[in-house]
């Protein structure tokens, strides 16, 4: 298992990503690109927290699959709910 410094480095990366995320908001670019970029950074931050602070990276496959199962079900709900609106 990693030492304190490792976790501090992860924290620095997460804070830097947050700053990048905020800065992205002010880039002059089409809205859909900005939204995609911001969501991508947020997702990356969430993944980093799960992998290194929740130690998911070091867990067995059986544990890793649990959050993925939830995400698959949510994906079905999200896609269906949004696509259903298409008349």
């Amino acid at each position, binding site marked *: *298992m990693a*030492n*304190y410094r490792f*976790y*501090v480095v*992860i*924290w620095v990366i*997460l*804070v830097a990503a*947050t700053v990048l*995320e*905020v800065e*992205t*908001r002010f880039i002059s670019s089409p809205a859909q690109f*900005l*939204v995609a970029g*911001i*969501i991508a*950074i*947020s997702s990356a*931050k*969430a993944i980093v*927290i*799960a992998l290194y*602070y*929740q130690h998911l990276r070091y*867990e*067995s*496959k*059986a*544990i890793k699959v*649990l*959050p993925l*199962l*939830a*995400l698959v*079900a*949510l994906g*079905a*709900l*999200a896609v*269906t*709910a*949004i*696509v*259903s*609106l*298409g*008349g």
Partner: protein
Amino acid sequence: MGILYLVTSIYFLIVAGTLAGLVRVQLAVPNNTLLGVFQYGQTVTLHGLIMILWFLSPLGIAFANYFVPLQIGAKDLAFPRMNALSYWLYLTSGLMLASSVFLPGGGPDNGWTFYAPLNTSEFSPQIGVTLVALSLGILAASVTMSSINFITTILRTRRKGVTWTSMRPFAWSMLFTNVLMLFAFPPLALGVVLLTADRVLGTVFFSSMQGGALLWDQLFWFFGHPEVYIVVIPALGIIAEIITTFAGRPLFGKKLFIGELAAVTALSIGVWVHHMFMTGINFDVREAFSITTMIISIPFEGLVLNLILTLRKTKLKLTTPMLFALGALFFVIIGGITGVFQAYVVLDYAFRGTYWVVGHFHYVMVGTTIFALIGAIYYWFPKITKRMYNEKLGKITFFVSFIGFNVLYFPYFFLLDMPRRISVYPANPEWWPLNLTATIGALIFGPAILLSIVGLIRYFKNGKAASTNPWGSSSTEWTGEYAIPPTDLPVDTTQILSNPAEETENQPYGGDKGKPTYVPAIIAVGGVIFSLGIALYLPVTILGLTVLLAATVKLFKDGISDKFAELKEEAMETWPFGSVSKDKLGMWIFLLSEIIIFGSLIIVYLYVRVTSAAWPNDTQLHDLAIGTTNTIVLLTSSLAIIIALQAMRAGNFKAAKTGLAATLFLGLVFLWLKLGFEWPNLFGQSFFPTLSGLPASTYYILTGAHAVHVGVGLVAVSYLLLKVQRNKFTAENHSAIENVGLYWHFVDIVWMFLFPLFYLI
């Protein structure tokens, strides 16, 4: 606990059955004025809710409580006190729901589906509706805890020798049932929380055009359709247990049966839109869900074939439980076949909202499930009571109830054009004879079920003593024998271990057993008082919170004094989780349900934002500086708690204490910035749900739900600090810090998505 569930669910059966009787009496003749429209609506609504959610599911859970630990060789469920809390929440929520009809204005009257916008204050102003919504929320909490408990128990506490392939069909069925519960109930919980917010706080999720009926439909049916399988899968497991015993042979194609159960479980999460074919949604989506609905019938019919083929070329012992199991098998075929029609969009247009559908789901819910569950009561009666019931009386009740059931429900298939939920119908010569026949059937079926119950109560007291295995079953709950596989122990493969639950019946083994606690009941009472306060009179919520606080203090004391600490964890089957402890596995399963809750909340946000023609620029609404600061504060708190864990592992208690204290401090800073600074500022700008609609509704509910989670996390961190302060953790034994840390990081992850949604996009 299994007995408590059993007795309570039978009580709710009698309540819901009486309501069903009222419905049938009302519909016996045309133009009946016995019940008014509103009374009839309430009767039908409460009948549906209580029968499905407070009787059918909990009776399966009753048997699971009693027999799953016996079947897998566990001493109890993984988390006995949480199991007690599940029960008390189940009981109190049911009583709360039933009491709604006695409130001024009455209870809900628009069906168990609670469709929006009929469920909003505009169309259902009676406070009974709010109370029922809260009851459903409490029940969802009970069910979620129960699911975490059963899944962890089955995955992690199987005795050595109880491998996946040797595990009994009923234990398998309960594993799949609880997985489904874990996925299905969070969207229901979310739906009723949003509904309560609409009714009490003035949010507009279901009263606005952008949310409204379709949003409710998506959330409700994402829960509602799996609920059918939540009710039916335990019944299939029970039928398998009974017919294998009385056919005297193993289940035909057991591995296939388990695979089919898995397929049904997975597919049942992907068919909910067939309940929405008439809502005018996208045609391709309807087609897709038409196909998934047809596909699910394949593994389902496979399950039925497995059961039928088990009976092939055997000499059946037609005991009472076997008769009920065969009856259930017969009904599942009729219920299944009549359900397939609804998969077709065009046929659904014809059948939707008619008595055909009522007939179909009663053959599934009542015919299959109640017959199987009553069969289970007879089957396990000698095990639970150590006495035998009267076989002759049992058989009479079966035949009478079988006839009564068919006389009651088969006519529904001919009432193709009669709308359901109407309280009065004209003297139509095609309708009233069938309705009268159905009512006669009800007058046969209801008393027959009551006779079963009364008979069983009588023989519980006066029945002849039963032998330990009166059916000659080979199932582990009867034999109490668990073979040790040769790969695990270098001994004769015929070596047998005795039943652990029974061998320790009078010997406390160091865990929760033998140490009763009233705290779960107090928590449930506190939750009910809090809910009553929300529905009736807000200041009462303070009393509820006080009770909850007192219970929390008691929990702290018990935890710090290690009152319920387990002395040892015995050798168990661990694949595929290896060395993961049951506490940690339980936490991950809990987080799975939390992911679904917050994910669903975010989906609600995206949904109403997509459907809204205009949405204010969030950077103008919300202070980016506060949002960014809070993000960094939460990230830093995650760093602090992970450092506390590492310090504890290294035996550095001072650093661990500092890390936890920093986590607590940073969490409080987050809440202060959010609730003490940001929200008051927004209130000052008149940013209220009533004035600002969905932007304000989504903001306060999403960030409020997150803040509640931060608050719960802070309570848990405070507990850890107290334990560290009293040197209750060691470098080897500190799993609570890791598990609370997992939760805290999850709360952090949620904020990683809320921050951009409200401050950047």
